[in-house]
């Protein structure tokens, strides 16, 4: 039986998650939801590898990144200028990207692909809102996150630490799997998770 709602979702446990010892907790949350591990590798990404995951040359995208910083500063140009040295959205976007690249390549990461019924929506819910002060209790970021955009800027990091990355859609998952795993990707999902038992048949 082929169901459209059975999806594959790409997840990265970022260096802060690994160095803080949160790998097992994150794994358990996905496993408890009945999701099935399909692929997993631990790597130390290069800066190029991280940069290649973003549309680094896309001026529109970079400017949007700068706009997010404006939002974080409530459009306070004086403070933006003071903390970031510029109020140019494109320039700020480039700085944010540089910092993101440094963050994700600063240590080991765990690449994972999880499969399940509506896995993308489920895992995005489990991860919680990107800003940990807004992430719900019970979500990964709500329970373990505390870094904020402002703390990051004040600490000279700019990009804030969010513990996990989750692909946004099925298309994004496919692209990101190809980018991060490359020819090392192995889909090993041809097995049964006990939590799947009884989910694909009528009650008798």
């Amino acid at each position: 039986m082929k169901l459209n709602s059975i999806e594959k979702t790409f997840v990265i446990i970022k260096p802060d998650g690994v160095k803080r010892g949160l790998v097992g907790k994150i794994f358990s949350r996905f496993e408890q939801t009945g999701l099935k591990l399909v692929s997993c590798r631990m790597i130390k990404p290069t800066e190029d590898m991280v940069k290649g995951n973003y549309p680094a040359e896309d001026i529109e995208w970079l400017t949007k990144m700068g706009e997010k910083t404006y939002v974080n500063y409530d459009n306070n140009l004086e403070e933006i200028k003071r903390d970031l040295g510029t109020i140019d959205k494109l320039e700020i976007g480039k700085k944010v990207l540089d910092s993101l690249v440094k963050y994700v390549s600063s240590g080991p990461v765990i690449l994972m692909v999880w499969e399940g019924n509506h896995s993308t929506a489920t895992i995005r819910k489990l991860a919680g809102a990107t800003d940990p002060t807004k992430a719900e209790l019970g979500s990964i970021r709500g329970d373990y996150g505390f870094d904020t955009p402002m703390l990051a800027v004040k600490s000279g990091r700019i990009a804030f630490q969010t513990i996990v990355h989750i692909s946004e859609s099925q298309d994004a998952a496919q692209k990101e799997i190809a980018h991060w795993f490359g020819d090392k990707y192995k889909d090993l999902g041809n097995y049964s998770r006990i939590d799947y038992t009884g989910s694909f048949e009528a009650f008798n």
Partner: protein
Amino acid sequence: MKTERTLIICKHDAVARGLSGEIIQRFERVGLKLIAMEFIAATEDMGQNHYPTSDEWLSKVGNRTLSEYKEKGIDPIVRLGTDDAIEIGKMIKQWNVDYLTIGPVLAMIWEGPSAVGIGRKLIGETVPFKAAPGTIRGDFSWDNADLANAQNRPFYNLIHGSGDPAEAELEIELWFEGQEVIDYDLYSHAVMGYTSKIQRNPKLSE
């Protein structure tokens, strides 16, 4: 500084039951450092090479089963068709290879002082029924010799951990051949005496 590496495998029953995270957590919280991890479908060859092939090892394994059968009054010739220790050793090795290759497994290298011994302590005894509560096998399995004997299979014991540091290096070579070893600092090590004593909080001396 003397440090060790150990190969830990969440076998397929642990993966299918969704216990990988539980197992990883136990290694993380004791302070060991994860330096490699891969979800692998082991081939028959990998399985065969994972266990020793020497007659010495095979007869040790065979004799263990023979003495267990004797204790329980099981006739090895009726049950297994032979009472030759090496032949029985080969049979048991094949059961273990089948168990290791039955589905994908999560292979990991954990590093730290006495990583091999710490790993074995966390895992618990080979026979889950005998493993102490608080160990992985004691907490998550009830498999015993009667069940395993009746089904001519190895103990379903969820997890593999290297037996000694030399064995660990051989197993790491087999499971993570040619892969880079990742070096980084686990934050907890700053207060665990991994590379130095805990640093005095500077504010206290002000």
